[in-house]
């Protein structure tokens, strides 16, 4: 049904396969995006599997299916995997694929740095995940409170993997963030003013800043822990008078912005899906932009709401309670603006649309439960219980994951040139929707009826049995629905209906070029004259009320002046807003493309090898130092090569 409304443009082109070497050396943001997507989906399944094993253990009271030790590794790795290896990279997949297309660029600002980010992520992900296979995985919880994770109380290697792993993943996120922030500021097509950027690009822009400002803090907190564990410093040491709250504050200064890093990209995707399928512009675009910025900004002032039970005193509690509550306002604005985007439109219930609507409905629940523990005295009854687990799964799964599913169904045609199977999609959605609520809604009750989180076992007769049984059954259903999605994904990739440029009749630039886009994206960079350039061509009546300016032309004229030509952009490179159907190669069009290179991969590998040397510091100095030396040498050598060879 999806293709029905879509005016089919060019005859579909078979998307060309590319080989392993091509994958290893690519600097094309679209291919890197796909790498991110596949890797992150794998890790999502992995994290989900860990979750399901937990649910299997908790299905009945006094369960004996997994040991305490295993369970502690499971929830630690489940949380870590889902947050750092699944959702963030899934968002990164969309940053990579969409941002350049949405702003009318031919690539990101630093293509090779982009590849580097991916490889660091991949190796970091493998590094932190491997130990679960010999049950030596991190076991300190995803926020690794101190002093529990100092050598004194966690002598094994488990948390070493966590400290180093998160450190590595931080490098990846930061490198990517500098890259995308620069790209969005600097690579926009003529006339693509900030207030014309698609909402996904906007939310991504905010997220890049959250990463740029939040990750350094966790980096430092991790360095302290790293130094404590490996070099015997005293930051979190009990005997030296270290203060466990230092870690908690540093972690949550990062941690809360982090949760908005997880949700805002999903918000962005939904803001793309809803207008396209309601055939209406996004309701109150400027407010959506400002509320996004506001959420990000306020996100830096609420961190201690994770610490209401540590005894910060009434004043701090009050301050953080109030700042936390304030965030409900911009978020609420978003929710209602989404609803009113659909109001008066003509809604087409594609699978993507269903997921988007589900996000609006489900995130609201999670948000409201969030408000209930924004109130410290009430939170004292909720913190560290399953009520919290319910809250954050409603925002993380009901928010981030549903939004990302919406994004995948919506953009699959653009990425792979084929439509996803809507029938299977429909089944996936409904099963997932029911299972999700069956899994996580009972957790509200379990929590308010006194069930602590992070317990591998609980006694019978505590009034929790029924709720846990429900959650577990729900989790099993989630496996089924997710499996259906996986099946759909691969099936459609292979044999889905061939996709036109713009199957959803959407308004933004990425839909004005073939699916999948050619390596250079835009043969001619379009001059943007409004927020919905494509609807200006296909449905003028929808955008009539929206400001249009000649800035596109003016700006382009200005650029095609002597200065720009000198800087390699010719008149022929810019053209009024248009639809590109035929695909030529970059050579035919004479568009310079960045050379593929393996250097970023080796650099990333060097870094990971170097850090993994620390693991042997205690046991075997020789191995330790040789690993560090080899890693460092590799890294330095390839960075040097990298910096001394031109991009194109």
């Amino acid at each position, binding site marked *: 049904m999806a293709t029905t409304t879509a005016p089919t443009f060019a005859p579909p082109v078979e998307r060309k396969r590319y080989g392993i070497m091509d994958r290893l050396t690519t600097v094309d943001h679209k291919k890197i995006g796909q790498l991110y997507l596949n890797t992150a989906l794998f890790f999502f399944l992995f994290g989900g599997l860990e979750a399901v094993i937990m649910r299997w253990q908790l299905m009945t009271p006094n369960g004996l299916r997994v040991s305490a030790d295993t369970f502690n590794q499971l929830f630690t790795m489940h949380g870590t995997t889902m947050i750092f290896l699944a959702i963030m990279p899934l968002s990164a997949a969309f940053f990579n694929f969409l941002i350049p297309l949405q702003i009318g660029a031919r690539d990101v600002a630093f293509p090779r*740095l982009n590849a580097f980010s991916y490889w660091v992520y991949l190796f970091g992900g493998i590094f932190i995940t491997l130990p679960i296979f010999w049950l030596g995985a991190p076991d300190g919880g995803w926020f690794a409170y101190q002093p529990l994770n100092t050598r004194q109380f966690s002598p094994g290697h488990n948390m070493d993997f966590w400290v180093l792993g998160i450190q590595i993943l931080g490098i990846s996120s930061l490198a990517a963030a500098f890259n995308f922030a620069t790209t969005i500021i*600097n*690579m926009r097509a003529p006339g693509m003013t900030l207030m014309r950027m698609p909402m996904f690009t906007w939310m991504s822009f905010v997220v890049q800043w959250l990463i740029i*400002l939040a990750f350094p*803090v966790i980096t*430092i907190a991790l360095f*302290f822990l790293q130094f404590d564990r490996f070099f015997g410093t005293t930051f979190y040491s009990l005997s030296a008078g270290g203060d466990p709250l230092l870690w908690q504050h540093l972690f949550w200064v990062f941690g809360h912005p982090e949760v908005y890093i997880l949700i805002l990209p999903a918000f962005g995707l939904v803001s793309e899906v809803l207008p396209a399928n309601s055939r209406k512009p996004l309701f109150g675009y400027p407010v959506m932009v400002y509320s996004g910025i506001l959420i990000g900004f306020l996100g830096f002032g609420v961190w201690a709401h994770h610490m209401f039970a540590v005894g910060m005193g009434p004043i701090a509690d009050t301050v953080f309670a109030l700042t936390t509550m304030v965030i409900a306002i911009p978020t609420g604005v978003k929710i209602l603006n989404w609803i009113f985007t659909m109001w008066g439109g003509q809604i087409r219930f594609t699978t993507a649309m269903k997921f988007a609507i589900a996000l609006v409905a489900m995130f609201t629940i999670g948000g409201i439960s969030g408000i209930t523990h924004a109130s410290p005295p009430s939170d004292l009854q909720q913190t560290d219980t399953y009520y919290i687990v319910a809250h954050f799964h409603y925002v993380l799964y009901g928010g981030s994951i549903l939004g990302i599913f919406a994004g995948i169904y919506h953009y699959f045609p653009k990425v792979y040139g084929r439509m996803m199977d809507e029938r299977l999609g429909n089944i996936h959605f409904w099963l997932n929707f029911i299972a999700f609520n069956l899994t996580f809604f009972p957790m509200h009750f379990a929590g308010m009826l006194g069930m602590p989180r992070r317990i591998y076992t609980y006694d019978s007769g505590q009034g929790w049995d029924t709720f846990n049984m429900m959650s577990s059954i729900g989790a099993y259903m989630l496996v089924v629905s997710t499996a259906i999605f996986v099946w759909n994904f691969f099936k459609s990739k292979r044999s889905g209906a061939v996709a036109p440029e713009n199957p959803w009749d959407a308004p933004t630039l990425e839909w004005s070029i073939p699916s999948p886009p050619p390596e250079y994206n835009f043969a001619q960079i379009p001059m943007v004259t409004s927020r919905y350039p494509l609807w200006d061509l296909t449905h003028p009546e929808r955008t009539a009320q929206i400001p249009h300016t000649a800035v596109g032309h003016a700006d382009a004229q200005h650029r095609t002046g002597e200065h720009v030509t000198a800087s390699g*952009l010719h008149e022929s490179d810019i053209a009024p807003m248009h639809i590109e159907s035929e695909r030529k190669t970059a050579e035919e069009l004479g568009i310079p493309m960045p050379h593929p290179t393996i250097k970023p991969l080796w650099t990333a590998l060097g870094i990971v090898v170097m850090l993994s040397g620390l693991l042997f510091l205690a046991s075997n100095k020789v191995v330790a130092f040789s690993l560090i030396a080899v890693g460092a040498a590799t890294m330095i050598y390839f960075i040097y090569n*990298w910096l001394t060879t031109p*991009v194109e």
Partner: protein
Amino acid sequence: MESHVAHASHHYTSTGLDSKKIAIWTFIGSECMLFASLISTYLIYKGRSVTGPWPHEWWCATTNQVAATAAGLANCPAGQVFKPILNIPITSISTFVLLCSSLAMVLALAAVENRNRPIAPNATAWQRALRNSKLWLWMTCIMGATFLGFQAYEFTSFVHEGLSIRKNLFGSSFFTLTGFHGTHVTVGVIWLGSLLAIDYKRGLGPKDALQVDIAALYWHFVDVVWIAIFTLIYLIK
């Protein structure tokens, strides 16, 4: 980050600015948070160590007494008295050196930017010197290295005075903070060194100004961080 080979404004950009310069500024923004975390940690742990030595106070190892002056520890057995760790005169000098290196750095940049401007035949030696990018890059590197030398001296003498990174909270947070800054300076020196190499190889001209500018921004930032550290950690008791 990206290639240093000059194709600065090769790409069409929406701001007309070069992406590398924007990137370095976002990076510097990030560094603000990095050093904010380090400095807050130092200040939070200030005065919370369970044993000495202390930054500004005298400490008696046997009685674990702390006093503002040596006189305060009159009853402390000889050899057990630890004097205040921080050495203001030395650090003041190294601070001054780092400040001067920033001056040298801007002059280096100016020299690169003006490389192609003809020098008046009657120009004084000083005016000619001002146009010599190598000279100023050298100056910057040397002063940076000098600063590092001072820091190396500082660290070793502190260790001799009984403050190691494992000794107490002060030791851990102090060495980590100043160590991070020192690492930044080291990276800066290497970076400037590579520019110097290019300058010798093919001479840095206006088309390289941007690269030098970026290195300079990094260098100055490391300098301003030290300005904050010097006041907050060394001077304020």
